[in-house]
């Protein structure tokens, strides 16, 4: 009985604030005092979980280079060939970044922190109140200097009750925190990342159809006067994806120009490619990420295009948001709250899927497995084609083919790698857009194998190619 009364009391004012939190409060423990339920689940992102293709496991996380050795060849000459791991929970994002050999053994820009720390107050401080200016300033710094600035911001905003409660981050610098997704007054979700705000405005300003983002279509009909502003124009349901789209996106964040999200022509793999093909660095040089270590091709790197891939799937079209699946509602006593233990929905099918799909859990798992296994098989097939391609180009080089002679093959390599990496770097193993992922891999195979038979390489291929060996095994 007391129980029931307690619960009724709980239910009345969920937003009774015990501690003042503001736009500079990056420490989640302060928010946790006000919203203990969300905080408790948020903290569980330290937990180890496991699914067939997802989950987060091990310290440090499992190496993807060891799982798929062809990645080492694809990334030849790039920092990703040193170290590339499974993602883990949000709690680890800052540690995992600081520990990767991509950071410890290669110089990296401060821009890296854009998505791995609760960084907006630092931008604001460095920009004297202008977040965008501070973002540009911090991005240009070295990673080490930028990190020190973030720690400094933390020390300027101490939180009395703040402690790390088992959270694996240095005091002062925090992984993604409440303030990154919430307005501290109303707790409404909001987006704060300058990269996202600029990227989504550029997407809106373009013409690419985005039937899954009604607010952009509406803004376009409205005359396009003021730039599209996600925080003002998007619906609540859209914001439930945009907060994730702040980070789970393809980006450029190298040393040569400011971090940007390449969406001005649309969100599909070839629309992003077109943007890169047209982009020039400030010094006038055509855009590329790195020069391939084996072939010398100038190639692009794809990173976690979850938002872009989701955009091509039927769930996005049906208005299903990232948070619907990755932060489903959970009953906590007399209240229903969003599960802030952001993780694989396959660990939580009852809440993540079954409200919409009243089907047995085993059947839902099987449907996902069918999609993921198909994607995985096609990815292996693309990888074999990629390896054949690299072998063929190497053989042609060894046989004396020069840059000009190899140019067609290298152009094909660039297209092939971009597509294969786009699906490989995406983290749902095809689930977010199953047919689209298969289509992209089909194109990757096409370009890789065209490179094998391209004029200048074909004469020099060694007798038994990998594909032939692989086919023989099947």
């Amino acid at each position, binding site marked *: 009985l007391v129980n029931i009364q307690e619960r009724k009391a709980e*239910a009345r004012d*969920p*937003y009774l604030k015990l501690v003042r939190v503001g736009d500079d409060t990056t420490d989640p423990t302060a928010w946790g005092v006000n919203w203990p339920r969300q905080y408790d689940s948020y903290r569980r992102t330290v937990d180890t979980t496991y699914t067939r293709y997802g989950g987060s496991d091990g310290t440090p996380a499992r190496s993807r280079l060891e799982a798929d050795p062809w990645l080492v060849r694809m990334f030849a000459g790039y920092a990703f060939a040193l170290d590339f791991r499974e993602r883990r929970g949000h709690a680890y994002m800052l540690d995992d970044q600081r520990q990767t050999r991509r950071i410890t053994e290669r110089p990296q820009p401060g821009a890296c922190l854009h998505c791995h720390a609760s960084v907006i107050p630092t931008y604001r401080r460095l920009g004297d109140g202008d977040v965008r200016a501070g973002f540009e300033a911090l991005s240009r710094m070295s990673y080490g200097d930028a990190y020190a600035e973030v720690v400094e911001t933390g020390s300027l905003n101490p939180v009395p009750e703040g402690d790390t409660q088992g959270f694996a981050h240095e005091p002062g610098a925090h992984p993604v925190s409440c303030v990154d997704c919430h307005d501290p007054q109303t707790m409404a979700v909001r987006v704060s990342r300058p990269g996202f705000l600029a990227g989504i405005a550029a997407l809106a300003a373009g013409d690419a159809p985005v039937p899954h983002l009604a607010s952009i279509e509406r803004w376009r009909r409205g005359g396009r006067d003021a730039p599209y502003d996600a925080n003002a124009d998007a619906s609540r349901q859209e914001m439930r994806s945009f907060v994730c789209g702040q980070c789970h996106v393809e980006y450029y964040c190298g040393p040569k120009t400011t971090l940007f999200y390449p969406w001005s022509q649309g969100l599909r793999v070839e629309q992003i490619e077109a943007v890169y093909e047209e982009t020039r660095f400030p010094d006038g040089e055509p855009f590329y990420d790195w020069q391939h270590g084996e072939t010398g091709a100038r190639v692009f790197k794809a990173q976690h295009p979850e938002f872009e891939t989701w955009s091509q799937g039927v769930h996005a079209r049906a*208005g299903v948001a990232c948070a619907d699946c990755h932060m489903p*509602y959970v009953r906590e006593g*007399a*209240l229903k*709250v969003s599960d802030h233990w952001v993780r694989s929905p396959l660990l939580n099918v009852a809440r993540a899927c079954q*409200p919409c799909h009243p089907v047995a859990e085993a059947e839902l798992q099987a449907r996902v497995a069918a999609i993921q296994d198909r994607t995985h098989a096609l990815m292996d097939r693309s990888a074999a084609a990629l390896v054949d391609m690299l072998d063929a180009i190497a053989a042609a080089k060894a046989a004396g083919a020069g840059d000009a002679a190899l140019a067609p093959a290298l152009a094909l390599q660039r297209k092939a790698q971009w597509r294969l990496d786009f699906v490989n770097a995406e983290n749902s193993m095809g689930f977010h857009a199953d047919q689209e992922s298969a289509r992209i891999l089909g194109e990757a195979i096409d370009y890789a194998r065209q490179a094998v038979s391209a004029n200048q390489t074909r004469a020099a291929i060694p007798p038994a190619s990998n594909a032939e060996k692989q086919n023989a095994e099947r």
Partner: protein
Amino acid sequence: MHPLRSGSAVAVAVLLGAALGLGFFTLFHAEGLSYLSDDPRACANCHVMNEVFEGWQKGPHHAVATCNDCHVPHDFLGKWLSKGLNGFHHSKAFTLQDFHEPIQITRRNAEALQGSCLHCHGEFVHEVVAAQRAADDPVRCVHCHRGVGHGAAE
């Protein structure tokens, strides 16, 4: 929120009158007058309502909510205005047989429905609803609870 709700009672009367005048025999013969009652069997008088009725009988709300608990606003004026408008709409559709099949809920009735969910579950979902960004931009309950009234569409 609902401009119609605060609208003039005269309009209601006119509409109701028109409904009765136009479709009196229809209503009588099809037992449509029972529409004004709260008995779910009144709804099931129309065969086009059979499936939802059967679904409701099997559904989790069977014991706790009837059709009107969900489909009619819970304030007095809203309730009777809604019954009037829906009654008119219903007899017109049934007489002319010109409605879209499958039947689709109107926007106004969908809003009323959302209000009904909150009428019963408001406390439970308070924290979730409170994070609202704007009053006209709610968490739509049926986005997830698709089949809550009368079974999922499978």
